[in-house]
Every structure is written in structure tokens, then in C-alpha cells.
């Protein structure tokens, strides 16, 4: 079995990082999200791909049921200042711990700063390398081995 035996001694087997990838709101451009999903897959993670037109509620529902480590939100619609904080708020309202959120898309620096201050762990704009995304997701998942 590949990739699961990084720590081999006894119990405490490593398990793959589980990532939710979703596009909240009404934008229909999912190419970026698919590329990221595939890159994370190739990095040995289990990506639960939710696809287009998700509500913040349905994203959090899925993250809870799937026991995800990380939620990745992709937005190209300009609605990031509404939808991203909403996901964070629902997580907080439901007292969910241990799930961190990152975002990608067209997010101006000013907004990115504000989102970070709300607890978004990482924000990726155009030109972000897949390597940097994989690295950051591993970091935010709190584990280095996928």
C-alpha cells in the first residue's frame, strides 16, 4: 500500500490528508479548482471535490461528514468577502475545530489581508505554483506527511 506507511512502528499509522475543494457561490469557472484538486491528489491527499455552486452551509456540512482537515475555496466571482468569511463563521458557530480554510482565485491584496486576519490560513492568486499550494496545505493540515 503506497504512502501510508511513513511511520511504520505500531499504531498511529499516518493517514492521508483530506481536503474539501469547493466553489461557493455562482461562478462557473472550475478549471482552477480542478487543477488544484488534481495536484493535491498527486501529492497523496484525498480530495473530496464538491464542484460548482455550493453554499457555505453545504460546504461545512460536507467538511464535517468527511472529517476533512482542510477546506479549499475557489472564487473568481468577486464575492469572496461575503462567502469566505461566511464559511469561517459557520465553522465557528458549529464549534468545529481542526478544520482550516484556504482560498484561491482573484483576490486583491487588500482583501487577502483582511481574510487572513479573519483566520484564513492561506490565499493563492494567479501565478501561485502548485508546489507552494501543496506545501501550504500540508502546513495548514498540521502534518507534513500526506
Amino acid at each position, binding site marked *: 500500500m503506497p*504512502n501510508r506507511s511513513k511511520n*511504520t512502528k505500531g499504531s498511529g499509522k499516518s493517514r492521508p490528508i483530506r481536503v474539501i475543494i469547493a466553489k461557493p457561490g455562482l461562478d462557473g469557472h472550475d478549471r482552477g479548482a480542478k487543477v488544484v484538486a488534481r495536484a493535491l491528489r498527486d501529492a497523496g*491527499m*484525498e480530495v473530496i471535490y464538491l464542484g460548482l455552486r455550493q453554499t457555505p452551509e453545504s460546504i461545512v456540512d*460536507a467538511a464535517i461528514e468527511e472529517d476533512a482537515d482542510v477546506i479549499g475555496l475557489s472564487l473568481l466571482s468577486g464575492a469572496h468577502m461575503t462567502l469566505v468569511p461566511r464559511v469561517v463563521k459557520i465553522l465557528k458557530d458549529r464549534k468545529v475545530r481542526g478544520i482550516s480554510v484556504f482560498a484561491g482565485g482573484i483576490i486583491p491584496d487588500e482583501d487577502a489581508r483582511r481574510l487572513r486576519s479573519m483566520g484564513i490560513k492561506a490565499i493563492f492568486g494567479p501565478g501561485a505554483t502548485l508546489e507552494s499550494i501543496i506545501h501550504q496545505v500540508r502546513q495548514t493540515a498540521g502534518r507534513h506527511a500526506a
Partner: protein
Amino acid sequence: MPPDPLVRRLLKGDRVALAKLITEVESGSPQGTEALRSIYPHTGKATVVGFTGPLGVGKSSLISRMVGHLRKKGLKVGVIAVDPSSPFTGGAVLGDRIRLNLPPGDKGLFVRSMATRGQSGGLSQGTRDTVRLMEAFGMDVVIVETVGSGQSDVNVRDVATTRVVVLVPHLGDDIQSLKAGLFEIADIFAVNKSDLPGAPEAVRHLREMAGILMARTSWRADVVECSALNATGIEDLWKSIERHEEFARKDSSAREELAERTAKELRELVQHKMDERVRLLLSEDEGMQKLIQEVSEGRIDPYSGSELLLGRITGLPSKSPPKRKTTPRSAR
């Protein structure tokens, strides 16, 4: 009262606890095994239905319709959707939730995506145990969706009492259905996409074959025409599932199958434990380190070496291996 607070929360219907415990049983942790032990009395009550079939026949879409149908009846439903892990990286993209099209905030529904994590046969290692957790959580029906299966992915037989093989028109001639594997495990054939031309022919042909196919029990496979797109045939499919459940409760051949499944599970559990112990012994035991050395230098052959190892584990004396005194295998 079970000691693990997660188990107590699960039994009270806490979704987070269910999610966390699935993670534990999926990774085969001791906490997971302990949890399964304590919830076991609460299992065995749900109707467990497996949906299998080739890639792209509409398993997820059909399940989505079925879930809607069952929720309207007030039944609580768990869904386990399995997709493949990469044999190269161990990673996976689990995409079944897209098609499941779930109503938001439904407390009577719980969906979990699972990756096969190196397991062949269409399911993952933790699938059977996840079914049990969902039963203990209080689900009335648990639906297991296999990976888009090839001809021999028949492990769904080990977890589900009723197996639905989903097909579509124009999949092949009647010789295909005589071949071993997938067609052997079908209790029900669901001919999906019946809105497409060729559906009546596919249904007729499967009905003709159904009697020949199921030689193992007295159940004659049902053939149900349905369309996830138009939401037709869903009630027929559910009725057929209920009919088979009823049959399985009463029929002796179905009981024999349960005994077979149980024996297989016990065997797998022991194999798993043996495997762990072998791994531990080989990596940590000094005597075994020496054995490895001797085998790799050709002084003991691997067949005799494995007997020695087996003897160490079972405590039974092994056939004493002939130590080669004269001609050690030349090093390559």
C-alpha cells in the same frame, strides 16, 4: 456504558462523533477497533444495499434519487461512496458528492466518501466497519456505492445483503452476462438511463438471463428499468430491494451466505493481525533479524525461513529447516 466519549456521542446521534470514528476505523487504529467492539450490539438492524456496476452507468445519480425517495418515506439514510486511490501516490479525488445532490442541513442523511487505499475489489478496508458505525448511529438504510467496477469487483457482496448491479443499454451481448464476476453477485439489475433507446431490449435480455445466472440461491434476479434523469423506476427499485431483504431473512441459502461472509470476515481480521505481528517481528526481533540475514545470504531457503517465522508466531513447532551446510547460494 462505553468508555470512549466519541462512542457515547455516536450512540446519541452526534454527527461529528460519527465522522471522527469513521476516520479511526478507516485507518485501522486501536481506538477504532475498540469503538467497533462496543457498538457491535447496536449493529445488524439496517437494510444494507450495495450499488455496483461499470464506470459511468449512473450509480451516484441513481443513489441520489433513491436517497430522496427514502427520505420522503421518513427513513434515515447513510451513504458510503467509494472511489479509487492512486496506486502510485495514494492520493484520490472523491467526486461522488457532486452527483449526490444533497439537500442542505438534512439531519437524517449522512454521506461519507472513501478512497480504496490500496484495497482491490471495489471497496475500501474500512467500508464494512463504516456500515456498522452508521447502523449504530441509527440509520435505517445504508447504501454502499462501489468504485466504477470492472468485471471482478465483487467485494460488495461482503458488506451488503442486497446487491444492485447498475447497467445501461448497449453494454454488450448475452455472453457478457454469462462471464464470471459482476453478474454473479446481482440480486437486482437496475437498467438505468432507460430514457435511451435500447432499454427495452436490455431489460428483456437480462430477464431471460436472470434465471440462468443465479444458480447459487433460489432467488431469481429482478430486472428493474429506471432512469435517474427522469426519476422513474425508483419506487420499483426500492420494492425490489425490500422483496430481496425479505427473501434473505427467510431463505436458507441466504443464511449460508451469511455464514460464508462471517467466516471471510474472521479470516480477514486474523490475517490483518498476523500481518501486523509479522511486520513487527521482522523489524524489531533480534532472532528474526538474524533469520533475514541468513535467508538473504542463502544459508536458509525462504520456504524454510517462513516456517520458522510462522512457528515463532503460532508457538507451534515448525518443521525444522535443513540448514545448508555445504553449498550456500552464491551471492548475485
